[in-house]
Structure formats: C-alpha cells, structure tokens
C-alpha cells in the first residue's frame, strides 16, 4: 500500500490546507474500497502493475486536487472580450508604430545604423519586449482587479439599451460631400504649393532672407504634387461615381506608394536648408539652422512612418473591397455593372 500512500500524499500537497485531512480520508477510503473489491474478485492481492493502473485511472494528483479547488479565472468571461480588445489596441498603438519607426530609422538614418549595429539592434529589441511585457502585464493586472470588483461596477448593472451605439451604416458609397470638400482642399494645397516658388519669401518671412532650400530638393518640387493629384483625380471620379468605393481604396494606395517613392530619396538629402548665398552666419543663426534641419529631418521621418501606416490601412481596404465584390458575385447579387467596374 506504499504506492497508495504516496499517491494520497501527492494529492494532499495540492489541497486547501483546512480540508486536507477530510478529503484525504474520504478519497483514501474510496481507493481502498476499490482495491479490496478488486482483490476479492481476483482472490489475491493486487500486484504493483494493477495498483498503478488503478491509481492512473483515478487521475493525476494535481488534477484530482484541482477538482476540489474553487473554480477561478484571472479574467472571467464577462470582462474577457474587453480585455482582449484593449490588448489589441495596445498592440496596434504601440508595437506597430514602434516597429515602423525602427524600420525607417534603420533604413534611412546611416547614423542610427552606424553605432554598434548588432548591439543596438539587440538593445532596442530588448527594450521593446521589456516595455511590451510591462504594458501587457499592467493591462492584465488592471483587468484582474476589475474582475474582483466587477460586481460593484454600476455600469454593468445599470444600463439603458437606448444608449447603445447606433447601427453602423454599411459604407457602400463615397459621400459626395466628402468628395467635394476633399477636392477643394486638394486644389487649395496644389495652388499653395505652386505659389511657394514665387512667393516663398512672403510666406516664410524673414527666414527666407537667411536660409534657402538645398538645390538638390528642387528636383522634387513638382513630383511632390503627384500624390495630391492622384487623390484629386479620385475625388473627381467618386463625385461622379460614388458607388466606386474600390476606386478610392486603390487610388489612396497608389498615392501612398508614389509618396513613399518621393519621400524616401528626399529623406536622404541632408541638410535641407542652407545659408543664403555664401554669407557667414552668426552663432545664433547657425544654431537655428541646425535646429531647423533636425526638425525637418524628424518631420520627414514621421511623414514616412505615417505614409507606411496609411499604405497598410489602404491595402487592407482593397482586400476588404475585393472580398466584398467576390462575396457579392458568389451570392448572385444582381449588381449593375457600373457598381462593380
């Protein structure tokens, strides 16, 4: 019976302290009764293998003891959907931007790559995971506390169905109002941009008399308008064909791609601003020039990250449009050709 005692001892270890004796006495009696009954039917004592089989059938000590514990979950089924939603938002709001910024810095900033590239990479990944664990741990802890006090949260008890969000309208059309305002905005931007070459000194005021753009940037002056022109074209088309939602997604993605093709080489031109002519600047202006160049450098990097995020979103919208179209054709929805082409 040594094996049985060892089994009961193992079960006892995982039991709540106050109930250990009681449970072990009852469980032990049951197992002894089973052994006695088996021995009576065989007419001999059980051998070790038979005893092992009987105990294995009773279950692993941890599993057996676990059945006596109060059922507990760190985050229960009521709060779990909210917990999962918050974690997704955290992942999208922190991890994705971090990853994009890291890619942009590594690809476009030689100084970022130059300093101990391997060690810097390991260090940065280390800090990413440390921050991620801290953030996820904090969210989990907050929800675990909320789980314990949720019965006291009045929002879950007192609610009014009339205050639930309105039904989301399926976006099967591009709003004409949106197209008109967008088009006006695009035209204003194009006019403003074209006026920069002639009236730059008026717009930039006294700065224009000290600093001028790096001549290498002049080659990109007109191409920078290409993404805006693509978007303006999309707005014109959607003004006439608002049901072509797929066209907007495609045009936006195209504009993002063109913008990336332009901004990536632009980000490598440094410095962006130079002193006007060959004038020697005083210390104050030299400092201002360095600061402006740094600000411009970071701004362009931010713009590239923003365009990358926009490109991902627009690519997702294209996939969604394609799915919607294929679903429509599978369901045999009799859509007019004008809506799908």
């Amino acid at each position, binding site marked *: 019976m040594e094996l049985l005692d060892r089994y009961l001892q193992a079960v006892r270890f995982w039991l709540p302290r106050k*109930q250990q004796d*009681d*449970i072990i*006495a*009852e*469980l032990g*009696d*049951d*197992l*002894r*009764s*089973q052994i006695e009954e088996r021995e009576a039917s065989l007419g001999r004592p059980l051998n070790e293998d038979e005893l092992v089989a009987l105990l294995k*059938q*009773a*279950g692993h000590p941890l*599993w*057996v003891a676990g*059945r*006596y514990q109060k059922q507990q979950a760190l985050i229960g089924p009521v709060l779990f959907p909210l917990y999962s939603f918050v974690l997704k938002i955290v992942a999208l709001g922190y991890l994705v931007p971090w990853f994009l910024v890291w890619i942009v810095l590594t690809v476009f900033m030689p100084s970022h790559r130059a300093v101990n590239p391997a060690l810097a990479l390991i260090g940065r990944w280390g800090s990413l995971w440390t921050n991620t664990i801290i953030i996820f741990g904090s969210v989990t802890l907050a929800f675990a506390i909320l789980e314990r006090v949720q019965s006291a949260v009045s929002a879950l008890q007192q609610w009014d169905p009339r205050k639930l969000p309105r039904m989301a309208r399926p976006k099967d059309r591009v709003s004409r109002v949106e197209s008109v305002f967008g088009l006006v905005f695009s035209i204003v931007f194009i006019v403003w941009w074209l006026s920069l070459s002639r009236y730059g000194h008026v717009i930039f005021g006294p700065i224009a008399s000290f600093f001028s753009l790096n001549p290498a940037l002049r080659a990109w002056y007109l191409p920078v308008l290409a993404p805006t022109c693509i978007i303006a074209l999309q707005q014109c088309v959607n003004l006439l064909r608002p049901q072509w939602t797929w066209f907007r997604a495609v045009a936006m993605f195209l504009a993002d791609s063109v913008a990336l093709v332009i901004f990536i080489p632009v980000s490598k031109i440094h410095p962006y601003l130079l002193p006007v002519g060959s004038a020697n600047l005083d210390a104050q202006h030299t400092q201002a020039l360095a600061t402006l160049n740094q600000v411009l450098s970071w701004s362009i990097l931010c713009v590239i990250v923003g365009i990358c995020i926009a490109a991902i979103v627009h690519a997702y919208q294209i996939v969604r449009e394609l799915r919607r179209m294929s679903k429509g054709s599978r369901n045999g929805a009799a859509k007019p050709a004008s809506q799908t082409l």
Partner: protein
Amino acid sequence: MKNSTKLDVDLFENLKLELRRGCLIVAVLAQLRQEHYGYTLRKALDDLGLAIDEGTLYPLLRRLETQGLLASEWREENKRNKRFYRLSRQGELILQQLLQEWQTINVSLGRILQEA
C-alpha cells in the same frame, strides 16, 4: 480528415460533459434520499447505468454540502471511518423543483424531437 474526426470527438465529449453536468447533480441528490457513503453511492449510480468517477463525485458532494443540500457525518463501518451523506430538508425541496424542471424540459424536448 483525421484532424476533423478528432475535433468532432472532442466537440462531442465537451457537449456530453455539459449535458451530464446538470443530470449528475439531480442523480446524486435523488440517490441520496437514502444514506450512502462515497463508494457505495458511486456503485449504486454505476449499477443504475450512470458511471461517475471519484474525481468528479467527491468535489460535487462537498459543493452540494456547502450549498446546504446535503448533510454528512463520519461514522465507523467495517473498521474504517466513512463519511455518510444524505439529503437535507433543503435538498429535498430543491430536488423536487429540479425534478419538476426536468419533467418540463423532457416533455418539451419530446415534442421538439417529434416535430423534427
């Protein structure tokens, strides 16, 4: 194909577990209208076609006792201490209500299956 068969088996086992959970409570309460200790209760249920393992039965007995539906006492029998359970007064009332509910569900299910 093999995976889908395994999924089907797992799904069936889970659903069976859910179906049995409530039934076992009714069966245990009903059987404890007569006094039993754990092992004889298990044997009695098994003989009547409702097998239940010790890992399920004993925690269930404790839960039902905590809820006031069962009463228990330790007594010596066959030179060993055994814990005897029986239905409490409150347990009898709850069992009556559960059996009534069971009948209603059974009749409804019968009608639904007939219609199908």
